[in-house]
């Protein structure tokens, strides 16, 4: 009761889940005990990470064995969750589910007692593609309009984004580094506030993730200018990428399950296998499409490669803008 335990199954269900788990994984002995697996998210409940993690917590017990709880810890701007996982026993039962903000960016800019090498990705859920958008009656409707207006009158366009240096702010920083354009950065409390400021005519542009504006863009209530990604977003098929417009700015945000490097390799492999198996199940696929989560799992090796690449690129941006030496 006094933990934010967010699985629906009770104690009885745990037993059933444990029994069901014996069948598919009989070959390999499980390195996990019967204690629940905790997926710790460094954000408040109800957001994209929470919703995505819940798809896993609802489907994976059948494949992994123990019950899976989603625990939300947003304290200390997410660092409390990171430290909690860092200090937990390294047995694979306490895992972090996060985008690159609380781990890669914080690892650079905050005073933490761990480094980026102290973590190992277990699996990647999805890649979120940061998208620039505005209201349909705004004079800026395309990437070209934006560049033109910003060139004509530098520092005149107001741009809303969530917290500074977060996943929907760094792409703007990178874009300005590449193009030399200047905009007025207006930090907001999150996607909801950015959106009401844009719709109310208080700011010009904003950045968000495709799932949260897809239906409004389709019905013409919002305009998506461009996506900071190599390929177009499946949720916004008609929105060009910045690369298509001639600006090679690509900075997608992943959502990974991450363990500390002290967790044994075979445990990580077991978790990777059962998570990926669960997400490939018909129930998980149906749930993912229902909640617009766009889950396309990557295994541990590919996730690690992606993680290391992100550490390098974020490090470069932060050095360039003088946030770190």
């Amino acid at each position, binding site marked *: *009761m*006094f*933990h*934010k*335990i*967010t*699985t*629906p199954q009770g104690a009885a269900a745990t037993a059933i889940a444990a029994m069901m788990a014996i069948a598919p994984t009989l070959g390999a002995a499980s390195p996990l005990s019967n204690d629940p697996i905790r997926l710790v998210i460094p954000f*408040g*409940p*109800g*957001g994209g990470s*929470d*919703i995505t993690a*819940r798809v896993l*917590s*609802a489907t994976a017990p059948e494949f992994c064995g123990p019950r899976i709880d989603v*625990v*939300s*810890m*947003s*304290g*200390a*701007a*997410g*660092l*409390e969750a990171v430290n*909690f996982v860092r200090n937990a026993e390294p047995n694979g039962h306490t895992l972090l589910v996060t985008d690159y903000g609380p781990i890669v960016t914080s690892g650079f800019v905050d*005073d*933490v007692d761990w480094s980026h090498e102290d973590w190992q990705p277990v699996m990647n859920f999805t890649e979120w593609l940061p998208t620039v958008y505005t209201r349909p009656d705004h004079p800026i409707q395309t990437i070209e309009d934006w560049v033109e207006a910003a060139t004509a009158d530098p*520092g005149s366009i*107001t741009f809303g984004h969530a*917290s*500074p*240096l977060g996943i929907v702010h760094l792409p703007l920083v990178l874009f300005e580094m590449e193009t030399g354009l200047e905009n*007025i*950065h*207006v*930090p*907001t*409390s999150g996607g*909801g*506030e950015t*959106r*009401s*400021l844009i*719709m*109310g*005519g*208080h*700011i010009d542009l904003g950045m968000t993730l495709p799932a*949260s504006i897809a*239906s*409004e863009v389709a*019905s013409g*209530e919002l305009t998506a200018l461009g996506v900071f990604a190599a390929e177009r977003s499946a949720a916004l098929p008609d929105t060009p990428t910045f690369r298509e417009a001639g600006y090679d700015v690509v900075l997608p945000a992943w959502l990974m399950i991450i363990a500390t490097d002290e967790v044994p390799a075979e445990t990580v492999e077991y978790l990777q296998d059962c998570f990926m198996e669960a997400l490939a199940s018909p129930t998980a696929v149906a*749930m993912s499409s*229902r*909640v*617009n989560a766009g889950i396309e799992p990557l295994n541990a090796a590919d996730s690690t490669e992606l993680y290391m690449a992100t550490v390098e690129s974020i490090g470069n941006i932060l050095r360039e803008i003088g946030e770190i030496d």
Partner: protein
Amino acid sequence: MLESFIPALYLAFSPEVIMFVAIGVLMGVTLGAIPGLSGDMAIAILLPIVFFLEPAAALGLLTGIYKGGMFGGSISAISFGVPGTPGSAATAIDGYQAKLKGYPNKALNTALYSSVIGDTSSDFVLIFLALPLAIVALTFGPVEFFALYAFSLLLISALTKGKVAKGVAMAALGILLAMIGRDPIGGSLRLTFGIPELSGGLALIPVLVGIFAVSELIIQLSKAWMERANRIMDDARQRAESLLGDYDASKDKLSFAEFRSTMKATWIGTTMGTLIGALPGAGSSLAAFISYGLAQRFSRNRDEFGKGSLEGVAAAEAGNSATSGSTLIPLFAFGIPGSATAALFGAAFILMGMTPGPRLIYDHTEVIYALFLILIYANLINLVFSHFLLPVYSKIAMIQSRILLPIVCVLAILGTFAAGNSVIDVYVLLFAGFLGVVLRMYNFPLAPLILGFIVAPGAERALRQSLLIGRGDWMHLLSSPIAIGLYTVAAIMILTFTLVLRDKK
């Protein structure tokens, strides 16, 4: 549209759905009454239930919890002076005084009726006026929000007669406490003194429960120790005393005349709550404080406020409950979650495969109509349940403090820990408790401090966003008619009422 109404009626009034709404209300009232635990938390925990229940049943359960929790917060606010939820902080001011005077039942009933009236009216506004009100709400940008926050701070700080300076000082202290942590615009750390745990700032629940509740507990405890030292000579007398002391339940009934006397305050609360609830990001505690402040300004018995006034309870409770329907307006009209609760309802819709926004009502007419019906009748269920439970709660409120205090204390600590899964929050709770003791000893009003703490992050963001958008020009703050209007009303009110109050002396 009408052809969807009949199936929606069947859906909303199916025995299963009614049962889930009732379970939700009971859970909400109980959790809301525990300091630190709120309906929002229960909704977050139970969110995955939408995978397993029919949409109407799941929404019924969540709605029930939400409404129950909204009222439940006032139970501990009145009974123990501990706001069970942030929204009920303003209820604690007069509610707890009323209890100390020996009439918790009157205060609780006032809270229940005003809460249900406020909530129901707000639901009707959501159903019939969502779109126009949402469009008005969108005209609130950073400039207008800063004016609203400044207005509310002035209103509350200047509330207590003869203590205006202390009130302003307390609001400033609240703002200072809220500035600990990450700067919302630049992202740099402020006032953390190198303690990494403070980088996320102080959480609202521990500060709120600490300032109001733990300080009260410490004071009560020391009183109890003093009394115990005196009474130890007279052991026999103490044993003879009944569990409830000299509380007489038969004298503690809310009369119709008393109920009618609170109606003006209730309607002020209902109106302000509905309007403020529709603004994305403003929140139920702000609505409660503004309603309380305005009700005091317009009351005939202004001097009773802060001393157990039922009008004060009614205004605060109607104010916070009236946000409950209208907080969903931006979500329904534009898909913008305007509050934590609205974000959770938004997540519930998404988990059910329904996208929040203007299309929601066209794409899922039956379920949304059923939700509208549930929103209305959940209030009735809340009214009936709580009506029968209140006498029990009033008796609990009057249990002697030597039994009650340890229980409340443990609940406060557990509830605070549960709200953020954080031990730091418990330290903050205790620290805030000691701060509260000091402030109470020197007669500083606590409400402005809490309001300052609640509105500071939003006010700072609004101010700095305004200045960013206005490119550093302070005159930009006066660029909106709404803002100018709010500043003018604030100025006129403070001037007139200060003068009126002075004349009376």
